[in-house]
């Protein structure tokens, strides 16, 4: 494709000189969007993995003189009850220090809340291969241990995953839109080239050139320009994504799993210049075929 013989003077075309720059910009944007898709996908998978198979039991603190002792007794009852549930592999209560550590990412210093009556938490691990009737467990827990409630994380997790999925689809839509804009630009550049070289194309047509012989020359040129633009765009995207990754790594948000790009993400971004070049090549080829179909 690169360096194949061409009868048409397409290399000197002023009309297609902007194409590599536009493809570079589009590749850059696509690389950012693709990185977003893969990073978000990884984030969702990690959230799902971290939270699935775990439950949290919350026990309200009891006020009054014997409040602490009574709260401790209810926590013990809840732990015993949870350990007897079929499918539960472990249940242990978090002490106050551990509970405060969980609040630290949101509140910063926890000194001010240390003396407040905080709910006690019980971390429950469930066998992922067993189905636990959570509604029944929740019901039994509420009846037998006053002030205890079960949180299976699913509601907030599903909302978070829905939000992430929406953003993921939005990013995929942006990539599709970038592809459409790139194609439209190639169509415009190709049609302009067809108009500029109309006379030469007619000569080739009249001496017996098949439509594909002519289309191939435009397609090869579009491939070369888009590939060059794609490499340029990738060259711009790599430092930008590295900077974003570095900034995300520095976030001190313990509640956020670390953002990272899987190997497939790197491969997908690395293939963007080739994808842009193939898209431009196919678009140019189809555009020329459509235009030549009007000749006798």
């Amino acid at each position: 494709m690169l360096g194949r013989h061409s009868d048409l003077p397409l290399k000197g075309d002023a009309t297609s000189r902007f194409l590599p720059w536009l493809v570079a910009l589009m590749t850059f944007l696509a690389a950012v969007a693709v990185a977003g898709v893969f990073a978000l996908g990884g984030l969702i998978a990690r959230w799902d993995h971290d939270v699935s198979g775990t439950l949290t039991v919350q026990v309200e603190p009891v006020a009054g003189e014997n409040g602490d002792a009574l709260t401790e007794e209810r926590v013990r009852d809840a732990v015993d009850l949870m350990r007897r549930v079929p499918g539960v592999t472990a249940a242990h209560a978090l002490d106050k220090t551990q509970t405060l550590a969980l609040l630290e990412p949101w509140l910063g210093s926890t000194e001010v809340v240390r003396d407040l009556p905080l709910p006690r938490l019980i971390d429950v691990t469930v066998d992922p291969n067993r189905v636990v009737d959570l509604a029944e467990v929740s019901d039994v827990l509420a009846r037998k241990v006053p002030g205890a409630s079960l949180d299976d994380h699913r509601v907030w997790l599903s909302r978070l995953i829905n939000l992430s999925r929406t953003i993921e689809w939005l990013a995929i839509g942006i990539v599709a839109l970038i592809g459409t804009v790139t194609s439209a630009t190639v169509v415009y550049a190709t049609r302009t080239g067809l108009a500029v070289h109309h006379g030469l194309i007619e000569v080739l047509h009249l001496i017996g050139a098949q439509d594909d012989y002519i289309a191939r020359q435009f397609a090869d040129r579009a491939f070369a320009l888009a590939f060059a633009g794609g490499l340029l765009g990738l060259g711009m995207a790599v430092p930008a994504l590295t900077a974003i990754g570095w900034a995300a790594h520095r976030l001190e948000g313990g509640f956020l799993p670390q953002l990272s790009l899987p190997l497939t993400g790197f491969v997908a971004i690395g293939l963007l210049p080739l994808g842009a070049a193939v898209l431009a090549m196919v678009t140019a080829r189809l555009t020329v075929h459509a235009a030549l179909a009007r000749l006798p």
Partner: protein
Amino acid sequence: MRHRARGEHIIRFDSVGLRYGLGPEVLQDITFKLPAGSFHFLTGASGAGKSSLLRLMYLGLRPTRGRVVMFDKDIAQTRRYELPALRRRIGVVFQDFRLLDHLSALDNVALPLRVRGVKESEVQKHVPELLSWVGLADHLKAKPSTLSGGQKQRVAIARAVIGRPDLLVADEPTGNVDDHIAMRLMYLFEELNKLGTTIVIATHNQALVGRFDHPRLHIEHGMVAKVE
């Protein structure tokens, strides 16, 4: 080149009409047959319709009405993707040469071979030979813009004949050359004709027509006045 028995009709026009867009008919009820291996001059005044008739012959247009049969194929019934194969059997010398200015004389002449996928070694062997034959051995690498009108015309003729066509259609091929070169080109056409190529040459040059004993297809006001 395909071998075809002399006498078979390579071109047949039956009541052919042609109009451009919604304009008047520039060709009306054109009916004639040209036998394979024949040599015809196409004559007529400017505007009579010679170029339009030639365009129909080299499949640059389809008729508005009537029937055109080329190489035993009814053009109206021929699928579009089959037409390039028919066009490769036709060599065309355009009145305005229509050379590709960015290509050398050699590359211009090589075009019909390259569109057929002929090996580059064959191209590099045959094209310089033919350009030498038409007196352009020293201009193989010359761009058309550096050539005189006569030299351009010879490049155009070489491009038309390099593929050894069954039919050669030429529009005023000797219009820009001196008498010596004109006669040399006519002898080239005669040689091709002897090898079996059917020749149709549109010309105003009555003196040239008079020097050769070939029949004339005369056209007046878009109608074939006589075939003699």
